[in-house]
């Protein structure tokens, strides 16, 4: 993975060269969904939708649009969530899209 890839803030994840970015994102987004307290709508709804979308991509049932949705939702979450939990998913999603778009596209139907 390239050096400017951010997966989680204040956390590091060790993986080998064969790791699939969608699997990694899936684990990260499920983590944020679990951690969302549910108080503010952008984070509660946003993490729920992100998980739904990444699960589809992970099972190779996603569509091209889903990649844009991931970015769009996480961007709104970054701008409007109350705390860093909701603001966080933007970084891994945007860096995955920037650095591993080819891998993500392989998951699209």
């Amino acid at each position, binding site marked *: 993975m390239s050096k400017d890839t951010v997966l989680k803030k204040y956390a590091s994840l060790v993986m080998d060269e064969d790791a699939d970015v969608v699997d990694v994102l899936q684990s990260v987004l499920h983590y944020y*969904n*679990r*951690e*969302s*307290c*549910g*108080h*503010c*709508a*952008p984070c*509660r*709804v*946003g*993490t*729920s*939708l992100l*998980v*739904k979308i990444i699960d589809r991509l992970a099972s190779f049932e996603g569509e091209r649009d889903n990649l844009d*949705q991931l970015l*769009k*939702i996480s961007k*709104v979450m*970054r*701008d*409007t*969530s*109350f705390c860093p939990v909701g*603001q966080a998913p933007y970084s891994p999603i945007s860096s995955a899209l920037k650095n591993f778009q080819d891998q993500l596209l392989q998951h699209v139907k």
Partner: protein
Amino acid sequence: MLNNQQITIQRGLKKQKMEKARINNIEIEFDEGTTILDAAKTLGINIPTLCHHPDLIPTGACGVCVVEVEGLPTLTRACTTPLEKGWNVQTNSARVRSTRKEVVELIISDHDMDCLTCIKNGKCELQELAANLGIRDLTYPKFTDKKPIDTTSVSIVRDPNKCILCGRCVQVCTEIQTVNALTFAERSSETVITTASGEGMGNSPCVNCGQCTVYCPVGALYENSSVEAVWEALNNPDKHVVVQEAPAIRAMLGEEFGMEPGTLVAGKMHAALRRLKFDAVFDTNFTADLTILEEGTEVVERIKAGKDLPVITSCSPGWIKFMETFYPHLRKHVSTAKSPQQMFGTLSKTYYAEQKGIAPEKIVSVSIMPCTAKKFEALRDEMKDSGFQDVDFVLTTRELARMLKEAGIDLKAMPDEPADDPLGEYTGAATIFGATGGVMEAALRSAYFLVTGRELENLDILSVRGLKGRKEAEVDVDGIKLKVAVAHGLGNARKLMDKVSAQLANGKCEYHFIEVMACPGGCVGGGGQPWGSDMAMRARRGQTLYQEDKSLPMRRSHENPSVKAIYEKYLGHPYSEKSHHLLHTHYFKRSRIDGKVVED
């Protein structure tokens, strides 16, 4: 041009430090601590909001009100952020507009989209917001499964599929009413609003006040409707359907028909009900006058005997269940007089049935109430003194408006008609029952007469009027100094009852007579009133009732000729044995877990 405009916000008389900032490049002078939302409002800029309500402490749950502050990296919530010196706030930049829209798209993605069949259709704040922001696509799929609708309460229905988790209902229930029936549970995608035991509102300490239904911005909380049952009764030729309307209805039914808040529609309301084909249109105000005589006599007797003081009013069924649940030790202090609704119910199937020669089982007694707790009160087991269920169906103001609209009756075009005899005549004292302090004022007008035999000259007892949470007054009745207190909203009632309980534990309470209304503002702010009513609207409706009081020829309950007639012909005298049987009740102790009656 607008850049040089200076606008000053004045908040009360408190002198605060004035600062300068800009909103959409317009210069504004503001008090330190003013939120961006409030400051913008003074410039005529309404920043869209969803979870925000003027009566509640902002929580920032929805994220719709975000604005851009130049120089800050992320967007800022206008409802919770105080404006700061030197800021330039943009409320409509490209970034703000697109973000705001996307937040609403996220929120509606988990909201039931059956707007056409929703009870809130046309009155939903989320619907209005989506329309104002020009949302045309449903971008995302719903991510939660259909949840069961909570119909365990006889008063209130909760549909979690429509809930947007703004938390207003929880705030009202905990902060204003201090009932704590509703709460957030679970977390993340699973977050729900529910009762502590999760067994539904009907199996919770909920007192049915219905304030949650008034504050809900969407169709997630609404009254358990009796509209269909009433239509059925009206269309049944074998039934004689009588109707009563609470004092507060006349001050706000007009709002549902586009009239100014606080327009008095008493006469039009009677006419409209006749056109709905009710067989007799009476008025709860009549039994409000009767309540004053029963309760007033009880107060006077108990003050004379020095027994079980203070006397506490019993008109508000939300308060009664609250008292039974949280202050059961005060039961003996609560007046045994039934509420006006229940007195009417009993009399409609006894006195009226006898007078008219109608079999009581043929009578269907309907009440129009500003209240959801009245539905619960009507179904109480002990409310069967006529030999039948005293009140058959209770409709809220909202339900009546729906019936009138369905029948195509335009309230605005109705003539002014009086209510029918013998349960329709009323005085000004009855009409002010609908505003906080009204029962107290009405009772004092008659108590003065009952004690002294003379009429109270100055009828306006201003110290018990108004929206101050707790009010006190001292009234001189022929040398006896009566100390009275008024509380509205159950949070205020709780504070007053804690004080009363502490004083009673030490031997003697300073008050003689206390009025409690469960809803803030009294019945004009009831849980069955038009949606979205805030405290300012409640105050205006209260004023309407005081205006009607002033305009009526009779303003003391004991002057009501129909009340005199019912005592002569039927009841004997106030507090008589017959009244005791028909017009008085008793109270229970209730569980704080499920609200059910428990053994003492």
